[in-house]
């Protein structure tokens, strides 16, 4: 129990009377907070996505079939869904520096184990736990932002922190791919290094977080950030109102929230299908090498940064803050390129352009289905619960997708075996026609569901 207390946030300390010392401490800690949560949450992503890059080498080596990889991949998403539900509550009571660092260290251990495991049950267990450990990062970062940045500046810093997703995806789809890709494009290391190097990166990130991510200002003898910046909200805190729990339950009675959850879940099917299986498809069917295939996937994630920003701008400015028309626009920008990617001309430039437009549209509509539109529909005081509900739905959808995709790919398997002295070399051939229909179909379903909310208006 003593050990458990190590992770608890400190008691409030008396506030120092020295305003210069307070200013100096605030400036130093605020700089550390934004740098560390952005950098280290980005680095944490490398430990989350490593499996996606080494899927093809694992299949080629005959260690796991696509169905088994689907099972392993889905456990991370279920673990992450569970983490989204539990870790937010824990982070509110934690010393976020220690809590986040523990998540990174445990995630590193899971990745270390993944590099040593060729057992399905062990890999599925480790990757599922990794999903939960990965869920330590976001709530810790958001809690830090809430404690160290005031209401009127938090949006800007939230935007900076959001770039961590792209930093992490870029590092994984380019950096880890570079480690594993055959020379001259990469180092040609064996697949376990695709887990071990991310593990080492997460250990370094954990040490940085442990050293530089501070506890709450009040636990350090500083005033709250609202007091320090004289930036108090006019609205009373939801936590002070006893009916919050009842209001949270009320969101379950709002049909639009269920439709939105299903739409988001369907869109997550396509999102995670492309992120998890896209590079395998590009290698298996389109003949790209590991590095180039991951470079293509990186393009879609990079375009996503602009997509998020553009969605907010377009829905506010062009559609008078109405999300459904913007959803339709960005949904079509997500859906139509899928036809080009899977059934379009066999030209790398056209493929790259289609992936950029797809990533742009996807990020926009995801920002709405899992965030903006949800907040519009839900009572404002329980917007967090609405987002949590949709988030859990989304990641369960993503997890189911990984398993179903793996199973559909495995069902098409043709094995060409070459027995030889001391063993056997096997080359596998897969047909992605069925999974592609599943992935594109999920986007169509999502778009139809999102469009069915055309007349839904924002509530206060």
């Amino acid at each position, binding site marked *: 129990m003593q050990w458990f207390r190590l992770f608890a946030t400190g008691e409030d300390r008396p506030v120092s009377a020295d305003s210069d010392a307070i200013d100096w401490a605030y400036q130093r800690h605020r700089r550390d907070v934004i740098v560390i949560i952005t950098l280290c949450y980005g680095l944490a992503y490398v430990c989350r996505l490593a499996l996606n890059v080494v899927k093809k080498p694992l299949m*080629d*080596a005959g260690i796991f079939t696509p169905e088994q990889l689907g099972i392993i991949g889905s456990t991370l998403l279920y673990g992450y869904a569970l983490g989204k539900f539990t870790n937010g509550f824990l982070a509110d009571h934690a010393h976020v520096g220690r809590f986040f660092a523990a998540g990174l*260290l445990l995630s590193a251990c899971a990745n*270390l184990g993944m*590099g*040593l495991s060729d057992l399905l049950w062990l890999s599925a267990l480790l990757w599922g736990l990794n999903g939960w450990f990965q869920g330590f990062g976001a709530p810790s970062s958001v809690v830090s932002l809430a404690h160290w940045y005031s209401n009127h500046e938090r949006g800007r810093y939230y935007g900076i922190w959001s770039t961590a997703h792209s930093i992490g995806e870029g590092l994984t789809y380019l950096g880890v791919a570079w480690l594993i890709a*055959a*020379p001259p494009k990469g180092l*040609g*290391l*064996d697949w*376990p*290094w695709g887990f*071990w190097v991310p*593990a*080492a990166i997460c*250990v*370094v990130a*954990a*040490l940085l977080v*442990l050293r530089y991510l501070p506890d709450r200002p009040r636990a350090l003898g500083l005033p709250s950030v609202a007091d320090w910046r004289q930036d108090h909200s006019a609205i009373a805190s939801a936590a002070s109102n006893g009916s919050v729990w009842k209001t949270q339950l009320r969101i379950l009675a709002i049909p639009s929230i269920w439709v939105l959850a299903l739409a988001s879940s369907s869109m997550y099917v396509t999102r995670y299908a492309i992120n998890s299986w896209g590079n395998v498809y590009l290698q*298996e*069917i389109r*003949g790209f*090498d590991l590095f180039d295939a991951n470079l293509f996937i990186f393009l879609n994630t990079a375009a996503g940064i602009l997509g998020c920003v553009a969605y907010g701008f377009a829905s506010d400015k062009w559609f008078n803050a109405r999300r459904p028309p913007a959803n339709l626009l960005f949904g079509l920008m997500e859906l139509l390129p899928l036809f080009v990617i899977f059934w379009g001309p066999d030209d790398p430039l056209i493929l790259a352009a289609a992936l950029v437009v797809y990533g742009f549209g996807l990020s926009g509509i995801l920002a709405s289905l899992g965030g903006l539109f949800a907040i519009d529909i839900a009572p404002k005081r329980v917007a967090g619960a609405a987002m949590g509900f949709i988030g859990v739905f989304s990641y369960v959808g993503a997890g189911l997708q990984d398993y179903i995709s793996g199973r559909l790919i495995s069902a*098409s*398997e*043709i*094995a*060409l*075996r*070459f*027995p*030889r*002295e001391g*063993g056997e*070399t096997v*080359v596998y*051939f*897969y*047909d*992605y*026609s069925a999974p592609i229909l599943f992935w594109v179909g999920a986007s169509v379903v999502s778009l139809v569901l999102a469009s069915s909310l055309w007349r839904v208006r924002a509530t206060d």
Partner: protein
Amino acid sequence: MQRIKRGGWLVVSAWLTACGGQGESSFCATHGGEHWRHRDQQPALVVDYAARGKLAVQLLLPAEGGAIGSDLAPRDILELPAGCSATALRRDRRDGRVRLRFEADCGDEPPADLSVPLLEGPGGLREMEVTMTTPAVRKHFVIHRDCERALFNVGGEAAGD
């Protein structure tokens, strides 16, 4: 705190120094890209796996190694499930190489598992270039007795192009 830091660095160092990969030999890592240098002297297997379980198989042998194929039957080149019927093996010359070919029909149950026994036994081939086309994908690679895995990224056009 210092102990935690020291422990962390120790773990990182241990991974990076002690947990080296068990990669294949450097020959296997590079031979795929260098195979073109001697591909004319190596056998090549071309398998066209059409929809509905129909297969067309060609084994191309270097002219000087033509004797290898003198007593071969289709099952010595590609082992098929019991329900498949194969034509007789035909032999001719193409581009200065000996070509052995046959077709097979597996009816309504296309086989999901095919075996090439050409590398087995003391008299088996040492190396072979393979091209297989299915309705969904075409793969071109080299199989070598000394390499655990198939060697991809083979330079040059696939045999049968």
